[in-house]
């Protein structure tokens, strides 16, 4: 039914266009191509208005486009020598140039929202309706009207004539052009520039047709001025085609912009298929594409943490400023996700919600994964904290032993030696001397064992001088030669400690099981990883990692996000290697 009505309206427009063509050719003596081009501009507005009505009836822009189209077609009737047609359509002849700016400023919502823009539209209508009316009060046909063919001497007949004055008519005509196509048109272009200046990037793409409108109006203004004041035919002909082209394209651009939301809806329906097998990281990108907003981001609600997080599970805050807008999505009354987008999408809340609904399954899946990743991150952070706490505890024990037992034993050693010296100076009992000597030796042995224990707990040299010095010290105490190739310089404490303990354990295993003659330790930084390798030329055949004493170390390495590997073919030596994340 609606299509039939549209066809009927289109038929009327065709008929009016043919009549407008005839009037232009017959009464204005326009060239045929000029006449058809003028009619085509009217038709383009009518077609745009009808399509907009069929596709987006809720947006009132179609009424303005349709009205502008019919006004442009009927504007040509003012050239008729019929008194009624001339009088009525001369008064209404400038109406299209009130309707066209109105359509442009009502884009894209269908209504003019800004108060300055509304004021300009009102001024425009007042101007285009009152000045032609005033002209007809004074037009008596003694001098041709300025935009009419000067070669046709036949006068038109104004039914509104009050007092004939050719001079007043000319002044009013020129005043209209100066005021409307000079002042009002400039204000119109400035308002468009203001809209662009205030728009977000996404809004600017939507507002692109307005740029064409600004060009069209500017061309039209120059054309009118040339027509009225310059009379330079060459310039007039060129300007005619430029402004006709711009005005022909304008309604089509506005229509395309209006239907863009329709295209977006089609893209949104594609989302369901597109996201069926998509990983969570791609959900945000797909929504950004569907909603034509590259800045769009998705945050997932983590029920346990009571916060929003990105796809990796990292907590994120929702923006509070006006530069970004947030649409919250829920499922069964529970928060699901937040779409952070360009504020221009707030004009299309149904579209955003439709996109959210289309992506619901993928969003739920992504939410679960984000939640899982957040928990995993928490576990990893907890493991790192446990390792750090263990290291701190080891350091505390080392300090306590150093400040307590080791100091007491050192003092005791000196006191025993003092006792020996005092006995030396007297005639001492040999048994007491022997006992003292034995006590000194026992004490030295105890001290040695305590030092070994302290080293195993946490070597101070590692804290004070770093990994290279600590491993040099370790190599000095090793019972067989070690080739050391260790990165100089300091690394994060937990990385140094992990690399050190891996090396210690590796070398201890070499000593205990490998029957090796040589071993090598290599520590280097590669691609953000610290690569630790302990190799020997022993018998190989070591137990798998999980069954050996290295499993605790593997946990420690993995807590830092690294890996520990053991390669020990029978008879082929053993290679223990660790890779520990270590950003420089």
């Amino acid at each position, binding site marked *: 039914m609606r299509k039939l009505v549209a066809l009927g309206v289109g038929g009327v427009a065709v008929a009016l266009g043919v009549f407008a063509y005839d009037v232009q050719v017959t009464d204005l003596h326009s060239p045929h191509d000029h006449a058809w081009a003028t009619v085509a501009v009217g038709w383009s507005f009518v077609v745009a208005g009808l399509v907009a009505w069929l596709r987006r009836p809720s947006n009132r822009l179609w009424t303005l486009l349709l009205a502008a189209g019919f006004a442009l077609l009927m504007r040509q009737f003012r050239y008729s020598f019929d008194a009624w047609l001339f009088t009525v359509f001369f008064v209404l002849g400038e109406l299209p140039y009130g309707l066209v700016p109105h359509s442009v400023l009502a884009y894209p919502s269908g209504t003019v929202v800004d108060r300055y823009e509304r004021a300009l539209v009102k001024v425009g209508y007042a101007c285009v309706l009152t000045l032609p009316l005033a002209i007809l009060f004074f037009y008596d046909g003694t001098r041709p009207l300025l935009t009419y063919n000067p070669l046709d001497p036949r006068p038109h007949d104004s039914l509104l004539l009050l007092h004939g004055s050719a001079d007043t008519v000319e002044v009013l005509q020129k005043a209209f052009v100066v005021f409307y196509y000079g002042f009002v048109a400039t204000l119109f272009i400035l308002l468009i520039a203001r809209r662009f200046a205030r728009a977000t990037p996404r809004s600017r793409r939507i507002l692109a047709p307005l740029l064409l409108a600004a060009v069209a109006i500017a061309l039209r203004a120059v054309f009118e001025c040339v027509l009225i004041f310059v009379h330079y035919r060459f310039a007039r002909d060129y300007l005619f085609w430029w402004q006709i082209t711009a005005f022909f394209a304008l309604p089509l651009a506005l229509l395309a912009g209006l239907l863009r939301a329709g295209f977006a809806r089609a893209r949104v329906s594609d989302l369901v298929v597109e996201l069926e097998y998509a990983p969570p990281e791609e959900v945000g990108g797909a929504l950004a594409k569907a909603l034509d907003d590259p800045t769009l981001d998705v945050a997932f609600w983590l029920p346990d943490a009571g916060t929003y997080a990105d796809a990796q599970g990292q907590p994120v805050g929702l923006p509070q400023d006006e530069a970004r807008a947030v649409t919250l999505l829920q499922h069964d009354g529970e928060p699901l996700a937040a779409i952070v987008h360009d504020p221009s999408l707030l004009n299309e809340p149904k579209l955003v919600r439709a996109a959210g609904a289309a992506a619901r399954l993928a969003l739920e899946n992504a939410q679960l994964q984000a939640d899982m990743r957040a928990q995993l991150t928490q576990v990893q952070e907890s493991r790192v904290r446990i390792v750090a706490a263990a290291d701190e505890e080891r350091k505390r024990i080392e300090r306590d032993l150093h400040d307590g037992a080791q100091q007491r034993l050192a003092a005791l050693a000196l006191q025993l030696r*003092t006792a020996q010296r005092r006995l030396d100076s007297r005639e001492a009992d040999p048994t007491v001397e022997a006992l003292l000597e034995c006590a000194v030796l026992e004490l030295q042995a105890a001290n040695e064992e305590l030092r070994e224990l302290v080293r195993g707990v946490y070597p101070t040299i590692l804290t004070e001088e770093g990994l290279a010095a600590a491993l040099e010290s370790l190599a000095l105490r090793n019972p067989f030669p070690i080739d050391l190739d260790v990165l100089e310089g300091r690394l994060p404490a937990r990385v140094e400690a992990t690399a050190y303990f891996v090396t210690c354990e590796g070398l201890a295993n070499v000593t205990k099981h490998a029957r090796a003659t040589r071993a090598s330790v290599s520590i280097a930084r590669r691609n953000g990883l610290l690569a630790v390798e302990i190799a020997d030329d022993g018998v190989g055949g070591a137990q798998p990692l999980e069954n050996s004493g290295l499993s605790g170390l593997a946990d420690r390495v993995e807590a830092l996000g690294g890996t520990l590997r053991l390669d020990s073919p029978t008879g082929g030596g053993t290679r223990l290697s660790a890779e520990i994340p270590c950003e420089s």
Partner: protein
Amino acid sequence: MTQISGFALTRVSRALRVRPVAKDARLCDICFMAVTVVIVDDHPSFRTSARTLLELEGFEVVGEAADGASALEVAAALEPELVLLDIALPDTTGFEVAERLARGPSKVILTSSRELRDLGRRVQASGALGFVPKDRLTGAVLAELLGSST
């Protein structure tokens, strides 16, 4: 704890470039001026034990200090021939104090409850004359280190 008399003796002994000798006539046939020592350690029990032993072995302990800042002050005031300096001090490290003292007249021997190989390269870099583990400290070891420097 400083001894003003030790201050004067120190100046004489440096002029004579003496070896450390025992003051006690029963330990030593020929008595020379004793080497003056300042002991720096934050553990009073160690300072006391070391003082007793070293004095028994012919050194003259002219002062003690419990931290790095005091060590520098005492050493500047008394100018001992030797500063026996613990590495682990509450306000700084013995290495840093040794580096400062190395510019002055006193020689420095570092000591610690750890072993030399547990301390890395900083012992050598500090400008100290040598190192002795605390439980191995004797006058003879110090004399040997001092003797090797002359």
